[in-house]
């Protein structure tokens, strides 16, 4: 057989070597490691090693992966104006340093509160930040990401009412969130009706009013929406009556300056916490959040941390209301989710604490002002149109008379990741506090030059 002797092989991550193994086999009372696997039938056992590369030393590993990373064009060597649900904001240095603390990084779900108060208290603080930011009462310990958080919110809302199976979703919700929602509900008898946007980029409230009939259990809108436009929560509330209202926030720093959905008639706020300084990292890992009105807390999916006292009367934190969850309720649980995204909920907690009351507002204000500046610069370029007139936060649609993909390819030559094509001639541009005036001026001149080149 073409298999190595388990007594002789050694690996840096596996401490026990030959002497230990021999001694342990003696205690167990068997003569070979192979005997440990007698319960696996021989006809399914591999007769040779897997055909995969390695083992590599750290030197080889680093070399290969760095060469791969070098094949990417990214925010590391380009100025990025990409948003669309993943934003490049500043992450203070101490956030990642704290995440790397082994006690946070290499621990698990706080099933045993006596030895997990660090994680539990951090989640309780995270829940508090979420509640303050959204103006709603109860946040859970986090969900996978913004898209799956929307799915969970829709499923929650459906549980609240009997015999209603239709959800109205703004077409200006992130298209990949809507796709994910369609996947999630495909066998659950839930019908999704989309409502488009009006000429100013906000949801078409007349169409919304019409869509919200007696069969509808919830309505979900995103603000700022996928076009970057800030929705008018009050107008939406007025158009949708007493249907459960779900606000989706895909750009979480906007909560530093925009009105919180909880104060404007919304019952559930879900979103993506990536914008709180988490690297874009090709789409994950991020952190989804969900915050609800108090009356909905027992319908929540996912983990919740609550305050209590210990046997000596000391304040302490513990996973609570677990009877909603799969490990107790199994097939009748409020969700199949088991974990949360604890490490990135911690990243959000640290970021939000550092920035605090003033900083969150200042980040949001800078995004807003810099975006306004770039919009002004771009609208001065002939043949650039900013098609949507409603207020925006830090992202907006640019339309030229040329194919968006060609314009963006031109910008790439200037080391600019210039936007996300969303239609033949339209692309999305995002601005954050990381952009300097020089970056913005360069973008405007590069776009102007690209348009002139295309015209030739």
């Amino acid at each position, binding site marked *: 057989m073409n298999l190595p002797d388990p007594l002789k092989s050694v690996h840096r*991550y596996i401490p*026990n070597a030959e002497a230990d193994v021999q001694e342990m086999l003696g205690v167990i009372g068997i003569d070979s490691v192979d005997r440990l696997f007698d319960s696996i039938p021989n006809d399914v056992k591999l007769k040779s090693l897997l055909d995969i590369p390695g083992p590599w030393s750290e030197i080889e590993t680093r070399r290969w*992966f760095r060469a791969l990373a070098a094949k990417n064009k990214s925010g590391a060597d380009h100025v990025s104006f990409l948003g669309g649900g993943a934003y490049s904001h500043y992450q203070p240095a101490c956030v990642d340093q704290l995440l790397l603390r082994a006690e946070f990084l290499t621990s698990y779900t706080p099933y*045993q509160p006596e030895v997990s108060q660090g994680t539990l208290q951090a989640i309780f603080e995270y829940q508090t930040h979420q509640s303050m930011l959204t103006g709603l009462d109860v946040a859970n310990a986090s969900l996978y990401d913004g898209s799956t958080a929307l799915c969970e919110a829709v499923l929650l809302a459906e549980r609240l009412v009997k015999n209603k199976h239709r959800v109205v979703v703004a077409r200006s919700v992130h298209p990949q969130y809507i796709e994910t929602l369609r996947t999630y509900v495909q066998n659950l008898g839930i019908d999704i009706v989309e409502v488009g946007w009006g000429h100013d980029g906000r949801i078409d409230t007349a169409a919304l009013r019409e869509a919200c009939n007696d069969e509808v259990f919830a309505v979900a809108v995103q603000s700022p929406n996928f076009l970057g436009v800030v929705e008018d929560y009050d107008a939406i509330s007025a158009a949708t009556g007493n249907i459960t209202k779900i606000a989706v926030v895909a750009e979480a720093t906007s909560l530093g300056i*925009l009105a919180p959905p909880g104060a404007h008639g919304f019952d559930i706020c879900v979103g993506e916490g990536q914008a709180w300084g988490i690297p874009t*990292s090709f789409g994950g890992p991020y952190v989804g959040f969900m915050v609800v009105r108090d009356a909905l807390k027992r319908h929540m999916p996912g983990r919740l941390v609550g305050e209590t006292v210990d046997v000596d009367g000391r304040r302490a934190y513990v996973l609570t209301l677990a009877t909603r969850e799969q490990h107790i309720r199994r097939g009748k649980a409020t969700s199949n989710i088991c974990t949360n995204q604890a490490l990135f909920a911690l990243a959000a907690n640290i970021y939000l604490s*550092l920035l605090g009351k003033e900083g969150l507002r200042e980040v949001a204000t800078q995004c807003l002002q810099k975006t306004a500046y770039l919009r002004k610069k771009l609208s001065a370029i002939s043949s650039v149109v900013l098609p949507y007139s409603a207020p925006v936060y830090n992202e907006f649609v640019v339309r030229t008379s040329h194919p968006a993909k060609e314009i963006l390819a031109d910008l790439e030559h200037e080391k600019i990741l210039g936007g996300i094509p969303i239609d033949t001639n339209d692309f999305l541009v995002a601005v954050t506090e990381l952009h300097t005036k020089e970056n913005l001026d360069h973008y405007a001149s590069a776009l102007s030059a690209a348009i002139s080149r295309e015209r030739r």
Partner: protein
Amino acid sequence: MSDAPMKPSEGLIFEHSKTGRRGYQLPTLDVPEENLDDLIPHAQRRDTIEGEVEVSEVDVIRHFTRLSKLNVSIDAGLYPLGSCTMKHNPRINEEIARTPGFALSHPMQPDHQVQGNLELLWHLEQTLREIFGMPRVTLQPVAGAHGELTGILMIHKALSKSGNARKYILIPDSAHGTNPASAAFAGYEVKELKSNSRGTLDRSTLADAVTEDVAALMITVPNTLGVFENEIKSFAEILHAKGAYLYCDGANLNSFVGIARPGDMGIDVIHSNLHKTFSTPHGGGGPGAGPVGVSEKLVPFVPTPTVEKSHDGHYYLDYNHEDSIGRMRAFHGNFGVLVRALTYMRSMGPDGLRRIAQLAVLNANYIRARLKGTYHLPYDAPSLHEVVFSDKNQTPRDVHTLDIAKRLMDYGFHPPTIYFPLIVSGALMIEPTESEPKEELDAFCEAMINIAHECNERPELVRSAPHTTPVRRLDEARAARNPILRWRR
């Protein structure tokens, strides 16, 4: 109540707040400032974030450092949570995931700009295909339960396509709670199957249960007792003969990686928790990743997009799968976790992956051999990577599993998983993984043996444990009865 200090060991970050403190600095705004009202009407803005903190960087670092000290972790020692595979988390994985070319790449970039990422994902899929012995693997699911939902949705779609989605998923009574929950969210009802006296599933139990209404059996291999389902191939035959599928919960892949392959057992779907077998850090409860491997029949149904390689060596995202169940999440899954897992697979190589299983099973059986007799072993069948004891020998002294778990904390160990699987009364489910050196296992076994003596000689000491942790025996009923779920001034 004792006279212990009422002051918590570390206040909440909100309680550290003092007006005027700052933990950040931004560059001065370098563009002309517009009147805010001209940008967003006042009615759509907020003037303040009520209650948010004002703290310095020093306050923040001290606060979170102090919090961290209230956790135990795998870096500090054995963390034998059964079914969770708490193994060593290599730091090269962290370094690689933070390489700027990966970390600063964006999920909406066109394929030609992210060739490095796509190549990496392609290699990871190839590697998992080889490990699973299966023709296709989706990397989109971001957790085990997310993978379960993905897998069951694929089965549903495949059956629907052939005319009848069917009604039931069969699940043994020893299964994780996520299994029935995932089946329900994919649109199925669950029928529970009883385990036999070995803790495994009998062929006849399965054969009797598989009707034309059954879509699949969802089974954990080896099961939650650590016992291999040695009739797995015949399970596949029984199911396939009736047009049903075999779903394997791969939570316990660590026990047979490189030894045997799910694809060779007739399994149609398996999810693997990369944060278990492939060493990505658990992070206090996520993020993880739960890639799903499928057999030939299910390939058309995998989530989109997939990563493909063209003849000229270009990598691209392929949305062109008309029978796909769709997208399971925005973007491309937990890419950063996938980077760490591939780093680990390359660091281990084929011999290393096999050695993981060998040493994980050796370590678990060493604990089993040392503690058998002291603790009751409810199922005597040979076990692989974990061993499940019960508190049966201790209950006559009115000492229970929870007490033993709490007492272990005084000896410096994280307790095992307790009261699971549900088929064992007072279960203590111990999974040491291959990361533990013999001396750590010995210290753990000695602690367990000492506790057993204490149960006989000083049961009150065990019943009132832990005695050395920052807090002890929390009032969980109070937390649930009157939930306090956020801080208020």
